[in-house]
């Protein structure tokens, strides 16, 4: 199943985001070995050079590291994973608040609406 990529943004950026998400969500655990570039490229249905570029970028940020001959691994630095997790969460919240604002809700209204929604959802999801 090819990865879900949108058509208007650079592919390598989207791969980076998907990999970050796979790491913080635990699909890849700290210290896990990543599949090879070719395997990942085939899975995602993207060009191997593009996959390579994305992995190199992840390596530069420290989220993955490579061992000379045995491939690429997920960092074991839990703090770093936590940090990325909160960055991603902040970004999601900012996007959400932005769209609430454009719907015309102010801070207080947004918070009370959220509380209300949480109440309604009780027992269902999260």
């Amino acid at each position, binding site marked *: 199943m*090819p990865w879900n*990529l949108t*058509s*208007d*943004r*650079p*592919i*390598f950026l989207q791969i980076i985001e998907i990999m970050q998400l796979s790491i913080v969500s635990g699909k890849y655990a700290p210290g896990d070995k990543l599949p090879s570039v*070719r395997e990942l*490229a*085939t899975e*995602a*249905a*993207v*060009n*191997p*050079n*593009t996959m390579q*570029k994305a992995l190199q970028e992840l390596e530069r940020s420290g989220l993955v590291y490579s061992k000379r001959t045995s491939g690429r691994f997920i960092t074991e630095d839990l703090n770093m994973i936590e940090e990325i997790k909160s960055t991603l969460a902040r970004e999601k919240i900012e996007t959400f608040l932005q769209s609430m604002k454009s719907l015309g809700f102010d801070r207080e209204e947004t918070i009370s609406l959220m509380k209300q929604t949480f109440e309604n959802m009780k027992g269902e999801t999260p």
Partner: protein
Amino acid sequence: MSIILECKNLSKTYGSHTALNHINLSLESGHIIGLLGPNGSGKTTLIKLINGLLTPSEGTLSVNQAPIGPKSKSWVSYLPDHSYLESNLRVNEIIRYFKDFCLDFEEERAYDMLKKLQINPNDKLKSMSKGTKEKVQLILIMSRRAKLYVLDEPIAGVDPAARDYILETILSNYDEDAAILISTHLISDIENILDQVIFIKDGQIALNTSVDNIREKEGKSVDALFREVFKC
């Protein structure tokens, strides 16, 4: 990285009509390149020149430093837009042909892929659907260890699921020493597997860049840019 295809000042005219107009182009190994352009832009002319089916009116082209000839043909694996295979033949007979004609043909890989697609090697081509026939041809082409794969409209006749398989086949057979040149109209289906795109317009190269470059600079897909550049 080595240069797999080089065109210098390449032109092709048919009578008074200019199909290719002084093209300079070089393709490097390790890339999957999309050759994109509207009907009549010169794509197939270029492809036929690469395969020695046409001769240049002016300029030169070379494959892996060799002029077009028996040597270059042994390095180029070509999927034409029309089938040239005898439809009375069975798949395993065609495989035998390929083994005889192409020294770099790997029989095992062909049978592997056939098995994966549940195509019976004893079946005759004429008993197959259009899509299955196209798959068989692509399998034959990709089972060679070529330096340059030239695929003319490889996904035109197949359903979306088979399209995914074909792209997967291309990706998993991709070799860093080789280059793959794909000509197609179905840009959005293949743009993720390309890393380089060439827009060809009225026999000239209008654009030669990377997919992510287009997305970064233009904020749109190759498909969307194509529609803009070639708006009728």
